[in-house]
């Protein structure tokens, strides 16, 4: 096995994820802010949580750069795909 890196504090990541989930719920149902701000903040929190899972649980933070690139390549493709679909709707 080629994995040899400093092990992250998994429990701390778990606490972050739990706190961020609670923050999402509070933001969605308790915080009196505009719908657009809610949308932006909720998406930001979701991306933050997803990044924590990818970087620390899937160990992308500790992988070689070329594996990281391979793992991240589909993300811009997915964004282009979604934006292309949305532009079809808008125009």
């Amino acid at each position, binding site marked *: 096995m080629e994995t040899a890196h400093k092990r992250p504090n998994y429990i701390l990541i*778990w606490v972050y994820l739990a706190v961020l989930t609670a923050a999402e719920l509070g933001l969605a149902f308790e915080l009196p802010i505009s719908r657009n701000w809610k*949308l932006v903040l909720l998406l930001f929190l*979701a991306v933050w949580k997803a990044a924590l899972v990818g970087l620390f649980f899937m160990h992308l933070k500790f992988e070689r750069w070329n594996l990281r690139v391979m793992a991240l390549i*589909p993300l811009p493709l997915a964004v282009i795909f979604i934006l292309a679909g949305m532009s079809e*709707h808008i125009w």
Partner: protein
Amino acid sequence: MTHAAATVDQMRPPYPAERGLDVYNTKLGMWIFLASEVMFFAALIGTYIILRFGAPGEWAKPGIVLNIKITAFNTFLLICSSVSMVKAYASIQDGDQKKMRFWLLMTILGGAAFVGIQVYEYLHLIEHGFLPSGVREGSELAELVAKGTLPAATMGLYGSTFYTMTGFHGFHVTCGVISMAYLYFTKALPGKYTKLNYGGIETVGLYWHFVDLVWIILFTIVYLI
């Protein structure tokens, strides 16, 4: 030297093979598979965004049709199972088979509980009249549509996108639970994983964390927005 062996020797390049990604084959295969899965879920999420923003009216407000509390608990459960998966991975890296078996079992149980709660949620929603085709006539939700609390025009789109996205995700979770249970009984219990051989745990772990990652996104866009 046999003829076959001599042929192999001649075919060997006169320089050391490039190390490439320095990743063993099953792990590389899993990453390539996950890349295709990103595109699969991007298609589902992209379609949802296009349908939602192009819908002929307002979308149902969060928390009216769907039970947020139970789904939030389910989200927490999946996050916990992701942690237990990574603890199983860390345990076998340290050569502790007993701990690895415990954490892997916790992950399987967490995943199975997630699927069980999702099935309960589906049954509950169907009982209240929320179907993939929209709202069932004469149901509790149909009354809310009649009162104007729920928008009549978009309930069909809401139902179909909700069941498609969460259904496909639930299918992935089920596949993950089955894969982990298979590894648990055929590899982990007989003690085939060691400090030097834990590729199966790492590979199935990558899949499991990906499923968790997708749910984090789905929970936000389907349940909270």
